[in-house]
């Protein structure tokens, strides 16, 4: 049973309400009391997703999460060898020609999701180190909106100033000593 009031009427009502409640209500806000702490500073930092996170993320968005998680379970059970050694090349393999989805349950997607939209990353980094990279070089992709959007997103996270500042690379980051 709501009625719509004009904003002036609303604020009038609110003021009346406050006036009535004032002698009965005690309210303390942190700004009134807190004098010893320096002012609060809030920073929002953006973190890129790893390949693994990206996979799960895509599955959540498309709705195949449960199958994917089950698929991972059966893959693990089939592994005969001992400790799953840290495969540093895993990200490279995932970005390989077959799009990295071959081994999984494979829901028969029409469009293969590719993460190497800018070409092979490892090649790129090699060339970057040797200073052979030409900024104007771009691979021509199909004029697919989805692809373009993903390209942009991928580049934005990879080349964001914050990522560069903290020196995050694809490589394993060893925990520094001392």
């Amino acid at each position: 049973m709501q009625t719509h009031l004009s904003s002036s009427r609303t604020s009038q009502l609110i003021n009346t309400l406050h006036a009535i409640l004032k002698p009965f209500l005690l309210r303390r806000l942190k700004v009134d009391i807190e004098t010893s702490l320096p002012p609060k500073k809030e920073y929002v930092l953006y973190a890129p997703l790893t390949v693994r996170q990206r996979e799960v993320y895509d599955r959540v968005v498309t709705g195949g999460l449960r199958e994917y998680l089950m698929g991972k379970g059966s893959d693990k059970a089939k592994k005969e060898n001992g400790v799953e050694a840290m495969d540093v090349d895993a990200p490279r393999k995932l970005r390989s020609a077959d799009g990295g989805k071959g081994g999984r349950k494979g829901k028969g997607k029409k469009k293969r999701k590719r993460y190497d939209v800018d070409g092979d990353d490892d090649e790129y980094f090699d060339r970057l180190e040797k200073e052979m990279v030409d900024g104007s070089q771009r691979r021509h992709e199909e004029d697919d909106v989805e692809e373009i959007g993903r390209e942009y997103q991928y580049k934005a996270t990879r080349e964001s100033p914050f990522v560069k500042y903290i020196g995050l690379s694809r490589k394993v980051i060893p925990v520094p000593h001392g």
Partner: protein
Amino acid sequence: MGNTVKQVNNMKLQNTVMQLRKVCSHPFLFDWPLDARTHQPILNEELVNASGKMMVLDRLLCALFERKHKVLLFSQFTTMLDIIEVSHSISPSSFPSLCLCHHTHFCLGLGP
């Protein structure tokens, strides 16, 4: 295999936004892979390297501790707190830390 199926079936995966929040934090929040030999949850650098957030956190903590700051970490995901606690304890340059979470006994948490 049966264990995973049961585990996955127990998960209610309807709330998409919640699942996305979880995956953005750490993929292990869905399934923390077990070491094939010991069948214990794996505890190594992969903990940090599996998640972009953890890598950023790692960097931040290094920089902050270098500058002699004290750090307070919050999370709504208790598993995430576990992951952070573990990765902190196994790191060679770790500083003393205290974890107050769902395990902590109510009285202990509020003691003088």
